[in-house]
């Protein structure tokens, strides 16, 4: 399939006749080209862009809808019995139990989810890379200690520890991000350690050392760039996991504090009214699922683009 498109490209009109001049393409360029041709990746990325736009433009959506995220509409928002109202002209996706606009709140919820997902991933990946690199490069006692430490963290009953921690410091978005990152970096650390172990035996590392390069230079200039591919894959796959984790904490009332809307605490509220107000449950639930699904699909495609021979989680040509 891909070979065929290559051929067509060579025959393409803009090339005229004769072979094009040979052009060197870096591995990153090759990966980018593969990713661009992957229709699922493009689809997933477009959905993610739409959700990001929704998050960024949330104030605009609120302005157009005429209701703020926390504004209670006592006039049209609640039925005479005081129950949420279904989708209608005033509220496109209906209202919640307090007469607030569900669409506006879902849009604001996207801000929290994306912020949590991205912040956690960058935090976890930075820590994971540093510690994994140190463990793999220095080896010996440092490696034993750091590896055991990562094993312990990985076997932590993390949700329970998160709950316990939140009980002490109190729930907030910052705490949630910190807690999730703390329990996520170890898996990145393990991968990086494994890769470092094999890369540090390569000839170019030895060459650098014989030229007099110090440990730090070898770690960050010679080894780190070769780790970026698996790290990038992990980064994209950590985002949906972190989003789901934040939603879970908020769902249990241990993440972002109301009235700030998040998909997790909206679903928790909606659970009390699911028998009368399906829209209240559907909107944040669908937003959450579509987001995690898109990130997972994109992550899978990124993995495939960077390492075409490697194992894909979900698809196989």
């Amino acid at each position, binding site marked *: 399939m891909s070979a065929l498109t290559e051929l067509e490209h060579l025959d393409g009109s803009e090339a005229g006749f004769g072979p094009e001049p040979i052009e060197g393409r870096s591995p990153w360029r090759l990966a980018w080209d593969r990713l661009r041709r992957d229709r699922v990746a493009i689809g997933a990325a477009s959905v993610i862009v739409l959700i990001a736009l929704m998050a960024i433009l949330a104030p605009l959506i609120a302005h157009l809808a005429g209701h703020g995220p926390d504004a209670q509409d006592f006039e049209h928002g609640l039925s005479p019995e005081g129950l949420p109202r279904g989708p209608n002209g005033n509220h496109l996706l209906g209202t919640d139990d307090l007469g607030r606009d569900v669409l506006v709140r879902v849009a604001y919820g996207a801000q929290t989810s994306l912020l949590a997902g991205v912040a956690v991933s960058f935090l976890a990946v930075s820590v994971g890379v540093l510690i994994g690199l140190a463990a793999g490069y220095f080896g010996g006692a440092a490696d034993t200690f750091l590896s055991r430490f990562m*094993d*312990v963290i*990985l*076997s*932590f*009953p*993390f*949700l*329970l*520890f998160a*709950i*316990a*921690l*939140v*009980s*002490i*410091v109190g729930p907030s978005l910052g705490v949630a991000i910190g807690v999730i990152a703390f329990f996520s970096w170890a898996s990145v650390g393990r991968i990086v350690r494994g890769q470092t172990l094999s890369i540090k035996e390569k000839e170019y590392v030895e060459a650098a050392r014989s030229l007099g390069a110090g440990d730090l230079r070898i770690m960050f200039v010679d080894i780190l760039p070769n780790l970026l591919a698996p790290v990038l894959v992990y980064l994209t796959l950590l985002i*949906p996991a972190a989003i*789901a984790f934040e*939603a*879970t904490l908020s*769902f*249990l*009332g*241990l993440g972002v504090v109301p009235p700030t809307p998040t998909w*997790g605490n909206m*679903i928790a509220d*909606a*659970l009390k009214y*699911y*028998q009368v107000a*399906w829209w209240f*449950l559907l909107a944040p*639930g669908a937003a*959450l*699922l579509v987001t*995690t*699904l898109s*990130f*997972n*699909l994109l992550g899978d495609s990124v993995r495939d683009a960077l390492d075409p021979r490697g*194992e894909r*989680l*979900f*698809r*196989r040509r």
Partner: protein
Amino acid sequence: MTRFLVRRVLLGLVVLWALVSVVFVMFFVAPHDVARLIAGRQASPDTVAAVKRRLGLDRPVLDQYGTYLGHLVKGNLGYSFYNSSSVRSLIWARVPVTFSLAIGGAVLWLLIGVASGVIAATRPRSWRDRAVTVFALVFYSMPAFLLGVIFLYFLFFRLHLAGITFFPGSGYVALSANPLAWAQHLLLPWLTIALVTAATYSRLTRAAMLDVLGEDYIRTARAKGLRERRVVYRHALRSALTPVVTQFGIDLGTLLGGVIIVENIFGLPGLGQLAVLSVTQQDQPVIIGTVVLASACIVVANIAVDACYALLDSRVRVH
């Protein structure tokens, strides 16, 4: 094998000690005033001081640490601030619920995961393979609490509206009281835990099976004239299970997380519900008790998983 187990148990004890110490630091050393928290926001300084003395919080940290470890070893978890009953009895009453939930969920997730992985691997690229893949992707992306809520909506609420009352929406019936009702009440919670995690196992099994099925000894087994069923299940699956067992050890924490979520959605009176409840009630001894107990369970289960691993793959025992 004995040496392997002894070393594994010792390591487990070290991990347990580390976890217990983390809990101690979190609750007693971290810069926040436990006594104030317990005494309440409006307590007078005298009350706070009294609480401090009663809990021994005015003593040196190492001294407190010793008492704390001593109490734990004796199984004394203290008393609930909320209703003064002993933490041990509170926890003990809820253990059966959580165990039923965790064991049933884990069995179901392994069954679903491995079976769907084998189905996908024996006919790669068929419609069955594709269907398994799509389901795996959706459930993999689904947070457990969302699946629970979806089940509650469709299988409990909508079916009840339609007159089918097979799935109860909440509650727990003891196994000893009525085994059938026990399973019926736990079916949706089990499925929630199982489906969310089974996706990873389905993918793992599929990949491992595809690798193994290409090996020479499988061709030999087929050439000997063994039936395909026997080749797949006896010869291939056995070695394909190794990564599955490894992953299972890693996922025990996830299992516990799933249990906490599912108990809170389906109103099951287990340890997870107790944990969340005691956080909202600021009931520190109960939180500490559940965290310590859960850590101990995970350490023990990890040792069991490693023992299974060693039985499956003799190379492990050498290291």
